[in-house]
């Protein structure tokens, strides 16, 4: 945890006075939150002990406020409560000792009994602490997915945090189904927040279903082959309608019929948002976003080949055609792996995976051997094993290994651009990363601009076009700015250490 810079800080401390300062950063979470909390610092008036929070100046002249975990003669071994790595600081370089802190407006002295209990826990765990809310969300989600009963919330649960995390993971409408049974019930505003999420999701589900049936009829009338993908199928596995949130509907169609598709969609009132890349995007007010895929994966991904003849392997269905259960599972796994590796992923795909796996296990004709061989071929066998074991501990036991929780929970369902960027920055360096983002390789560029395919010498022109297009589009501009900020920033201690 870094305190804000102040040249007079050390002078005031040396004069024997206490200093109260706001904190910044995340390294001392969950104890100190930079939005609300402050610390009271004094010049050490006694020997530093294990468990003390101390301040020192880093080699970059920044004040660091972390906890002493071990003492080795004159060296203190220090770690932020939310960090994984240690710093080694000479005792004589300690500037201040925290003798209390202000949390949510309340002053807590360093000898407070419950604070000492927290310190004991931090030191015993030796790793960042998992907030109770994180483990509780797993129990709520488990109950929602498996149809079980959710246990009451642990004392002192921060319900706002629970609700926001569920929203970030897009599991609010699933969790909402177990909220009314909780005893004691959560605060009224929280119950309302969950039930609104559920109602919204149910409404979207009904509207999208009706809209999709119009599109399907249009495609069938014109004899255009198509396969429903992802959420369209997965949502049916959830115990109740409306539990599976989704942003859009994805459908794979016969790409040789693009013109006919555009005609059908525009006749249904859709605006063409994009016809480039691996899927065409159509939008109709107020909420209808349809991604009509020309292929299941762009050519630069290793899975593209395996799925390129997916129409030949389609099976018939009362509503038309669909992927076989085996291929659907393989596509789900590959798609999940793609998101997981690029930017992390949240809790929702684990719910999907659990329900898919359960459905397939109950299906006697499911060809597990074909799936296993294909997963091996796709390089996904290890990924699938890992994720199934997370599912198992989460939905069977309601417990997840802390390290996995630490990876999954803070990110939310679409992971984080930050994680994706930091992973890449670590590999390529800041400048290398910036270059790689500005000047995409030819293969990726042809996915965005198919017109470029026969004209590779125009690549530099399309680099410029892509950048100009990004600047012109406010949504993309905001994303680009966010990414530039990440490149400029020093990754936080916790993320950097992961």
């Amino acid at each position: 945890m870094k305190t804000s810079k102040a040249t007079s800080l050390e002078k005031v401390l040396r004069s024997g006075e206490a200093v109260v300062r706001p904190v910044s950063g995340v390294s001392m979470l969950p104890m100190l939150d930079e939005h609300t909390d402050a610390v009271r610092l004094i010049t050490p008036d006694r020997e530093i002990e294990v468990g003390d929070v101390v301040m020192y100046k880093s080699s970059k002249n920044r004040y660091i406020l972390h906890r002493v975990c071990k003492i080795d003669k004159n060296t203190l071994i220090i770690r932020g409560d939310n960090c994984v790595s240690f710093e080694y600081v000479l005792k004589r370089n300690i500037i201040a000792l925290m003798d209390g802190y202000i949390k949510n407006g309340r002053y807590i002295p360093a000898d407070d009994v419950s604070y000492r209990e927290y310190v004991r826990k931090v030191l015993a765990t030796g790793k960042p602490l998992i907030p109770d809310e994180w483990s509780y969300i797993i129990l709520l989600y488990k109950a929602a997915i498996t149809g079980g009963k959710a246990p009451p919330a642990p004392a002192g649960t921060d319900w706002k945090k629970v609700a926001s995390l569920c929203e970030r993971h897009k599991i609010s409408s699933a969790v909402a189904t177990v909220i009314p049974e909780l005893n004691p019930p959560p605060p009224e505003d929280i119950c309302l927040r969950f039930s609104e999420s559920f109602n919204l999701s149910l409404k979207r589900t009904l509207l999208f279903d009706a809209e999709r049936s119009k599109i399907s009829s249009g495609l069938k009338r014109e004899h255009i082959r198509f396969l429903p993908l992802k959420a369209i199928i997965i949502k049916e596995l959830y115990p109740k309608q409306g539990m599976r949130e989704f942003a859009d509907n994805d459908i794979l169609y016969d790409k040789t019929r693009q013109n006919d598709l555009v005609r059908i969609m525009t006749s249904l009132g859709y605006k063409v948002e994009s016809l480039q890349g691996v899927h065409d995007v159509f939008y109709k007010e107020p909420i209808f976003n349809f991604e009509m895929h020309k292929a299941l994966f762009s050519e630069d991904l290793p899975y593209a080949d395996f799925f390129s003849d997916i129409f030949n392997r389609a099976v018939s269905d009362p509503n038309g055609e669909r992927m076989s259960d085996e291929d659907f599972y393989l596509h789900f796994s590959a798609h999940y792996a793609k998101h997981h590796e690029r930017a992390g992923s949240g809790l929702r795909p684990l719910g999907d995976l659990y329900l898919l796996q359960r459905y397939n296990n109950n299906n006697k004709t499911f060809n597990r051997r074909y799936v296993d061989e294909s997963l091996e071929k796709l390089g996904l066998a290890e990924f699938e094993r890992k994720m199934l074991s997370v599912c198992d501990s989460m939905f069977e036991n309601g417990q997840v290994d802390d390290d996995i929780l630490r990876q999954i929970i803070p990110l939310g369902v679409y992971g984080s651009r930050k994680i994706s960027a930091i992973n890449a920055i670590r590999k390529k360096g800041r400048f290398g990363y910036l270059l790689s983002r500005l000047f995409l390789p030819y293969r990726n560029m042809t996915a965005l601009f198919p017109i470029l395919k026969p004209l590779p010498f125009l690549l530099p022109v399309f680099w410029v076009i892509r950048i100009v297009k990004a600047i012109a589009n406010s949504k993309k501009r905001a994303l680009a700015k966010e990414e530039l900020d990440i490149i400029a920033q020093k990754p936080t201690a916790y993320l950097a250490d992961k």
Partner: protein
Amino acid sequence: MKLKKGLILSEIDGKYVAVAADDAGKSFSGMMKLNKTAAFITERLQRQTTLEELVEAVTEKYDVTQEMALQSVTDTVEVFRRVNLIEE
């Protein structure tokens, strides 16, 4: 009278909800929860009908007095009228 085009009525776990798309969606963007009788009336309102026909249909279906049926019909129609979902 009848409902504007685009009202979608669904039965979920024995409960009824209605959402609106297309023309109806321009007037109403929420979701309604309906009881069985209201759902029955809504179903009938998808095509041109009259108050009398609705009352008769409800009386037949649910074995209730005309007064009770009229109450249910007017209540349901009033809800739809308030959100501008009824075409006269």
